[in-house]
């Protein structure tokens, strides 16, 4: 019965803040990784130019 009543949409709606919060924190880590990778690419470029 409980399974039959389960709706993914309702679950997502109810836990919207929580899910977006977790994704937001993962997004922050991706942002840091992206910026760090950009630094590495920049350094390799500078080294190749010098």
């Amino acid at each position, binding site marked *: 019965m409980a399974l039959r009543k389960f709706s993914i949409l309702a679950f997502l709606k109810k836990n919207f803040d929580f899910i977006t*919060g*977790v994704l937001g*924190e993962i997004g922050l*880590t991706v942002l840091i*990784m992206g*910026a*760090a990778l950009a630094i*590495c690419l920049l*350094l*390799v470029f500078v080294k190749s130019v010098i």
Partner: protein
Amino acid sequence: MIPALTREDLKIIGYNLSRISYLMGGILLLPIIVAVIYREIDTIPFFLIGASLAFILGSLLNHFLETKKEMELKHAVVMVAVGWLLAPVLASIPIWLSNATASYLHASFESLSGFTGTGLTVATDIDHLSHSINFLRHFLQFVGDGIGIIVVSLSILGKTKISSVLAFKGEAKELGIRPSIVRTSRIIIGIAITFLIVGTILFAAAGIKEGLNPGTAIFDGLNHSMTGYATGGFSTRSQNLLFYHSVWVEVAAIVTMIIGALNFNLHYAILGGKRKEILKNIEVRILFFSLLALGFLVSANLIFSNLYTSPDSLFRKGIFHVISGQTTTGFQTAPPQHFMLLWPAFSMIVISIAMILGGCANSTSGGIKMVRIGILFKSIVREVRQTLLPRSAVVRGTFHNIEDTLITDTMIKGAAVIAMGYIVLFTFGTMITVAHGYSVESSMFETSSALGNVGLSSGITSPSMPFVVEVTYMFLMWAGKLEIIAVLVLMGFIILGLRKGIKK
């Protein structure tokens, strides 16, 4: 004049320690489930002996020291300082009995390193440790550092709410998530379990992608997720994360390490819908810029010394270790000997600085903490502005950490005292290590790793390390976890007790 502890004070402290002992007994029973799953029947007695001793000790303390008196701050500070020694001593019993380490001192080192979320290891042949003992090592980091079991033991098993609040202060945490301490503890556990699940999925998926069988990938993933979130750094492999040679495992590690280094109050705000907080928060901003600035310095040094020359190797060796160091996790993707023999001294010193700076306050990470760095930095700016402006001008400094806060002289003093304490202990540990014949940069690296509860190693920490260095690092791990003040208070009471005796 500071009053010495009385017998009644010792009774209150001992009675509250009984709860920690009980909870440790319960914790030591959990790996039995893993032993049953992997059919490691021979390890079960080790856990039963450890748990029994913990329950017996708890019962003795409870029976002989029972008191209805409420804890005061001085009791809480001493109780937390002693509790952070008692819990690892109890947890070291199964590790020692299973011969995972060569001696009892090594077992105590391993247990303390686990409990404080440090991650320096002296275990012998980690690759062939039983699953249950390996699980215990990782689980200790998760409950000790990830959840903060000392405080949770009081809030769950304690009769009073005030005792737990005071214990938070003893652990140098100012958690104001919810007025009820029991509710706060539940939220902390809830947040930890949420990110434990997220981390396990990421690590397990990366492991399966790299060809591990699903069972091994999930076991390794669960353990690395526990130690990643707890910013502990223990691994199921003797080569740590280098074993996998996988960029996906390293990405999963970076995600869990950074999330683990964020403030619990920040997690609560973000998961509760305040998503903009992630961009406004002073600690996130300083962590972001310091990671990139230190990452730039290390990467530039590595590429111009021709050690790593491609973007991916710079990221996976240089940036990864800066993140691992500053979040105080200690996951490694390079062998310890590389740090000691190949890495330039400049990079070693920059990573040492990252390890001392640490992550966010009220998180699982160690070090001085971002908020204190922010307060000290802003206070310097305030002083400069005050000097440049007319005498009558009033310069105020504020920062945003969940809410806008005015920087007070008390805050600056507190941050400066703790930063000074770290510098003094760092100098002390480095001198002891150098005196045993290690290079200055390796000694600085290993000392900051122990003091900041990090776990990155340049090879000094090993089963054959000198006795004095091992004991020094144990002291640094303990003092670093308690942010020094609680240790000084305990020492003060011990000295007073020795000079004046224990009064009735």
